[in-house]
């Protein structure tokens, strides 16, 4: 069974440009999470989808970030316009059920560098 996949693995863009990250969760997992780790800091929660609905987006840093999960399958995270402080590693995770007792399976991450 395929794990969580993320695309691209790396992205280098200039400040002010737009970048879209994609996450394909494990098939059948209704719950999809986005996290990010900026340089030297801990992994931080961004938001949580249950199917196509946003369950919790309390971690989204500002309105330059837009996450979607149309159809409840894959998800995209768009940063527009990108700023220097957006550089970091963006992780996606999925789980079958929600809640802390459910194991979250993480993808390999997308490394974003904004110049």
């Amino acid at each position, binding site marked *: 069974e395929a794990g*969580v996949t993320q695309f691209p693995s790396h992205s280098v863009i200039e400040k002010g440009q737009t970048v879209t990250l994609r996450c394909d969760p494990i098939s059948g997992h209704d719950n999809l*999470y986005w*996290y990010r780790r900026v340089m030297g*800091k*801990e*992994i*931080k*929660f961004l938001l*949580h989808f249950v199917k196509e609905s946003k*369950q*919790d987006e*309390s*971690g989204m840093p500002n309105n330059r970030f837009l996450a979607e999960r149309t159809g409840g399958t894959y998800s995209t995270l768009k940063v527009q316009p990108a700023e220097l402080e957006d550089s970091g590693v963006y*992780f996606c*995770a999925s789980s079958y059920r*929600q*809640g*802390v*007792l459910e*194991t*979250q*399976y*993480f*993808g*390999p*991450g997308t490394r974003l560098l904004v110049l």
Partner: protein
Amino acid sequence: SQKIEQNSEALNIQEGKTATLTCNYTNYSPAYLQWYRQDPGRGPVFLLLIRENEKEKRKERLKVTFDTTLKQSLFHITASQPADSATYLCALDSNYGQNFVFGPGTRLSVLP
């Protein structure tokens, strides 16, 4: 303010010894605490979960303790091997158990 600290950024130990990693938290009241392993270029991988009413949990060579009075969890790897070298992250539940808060991680190196 709320804070999670892990004992050190990096820890070196000799193969065969027991590695002990520490996770301390401030101004949280987690019901659950998790430990993850992360290898370079990969996402975190779940290892163990311990509940607030559990003192200790074991899985093969791994042991986790959870002391809610001290606000601390200890993560032990016995008979450590070079393959155990990785970054280990603790995470605790927040927001009524709907998402996690991660610690900064400890990079463990097991030397042959």
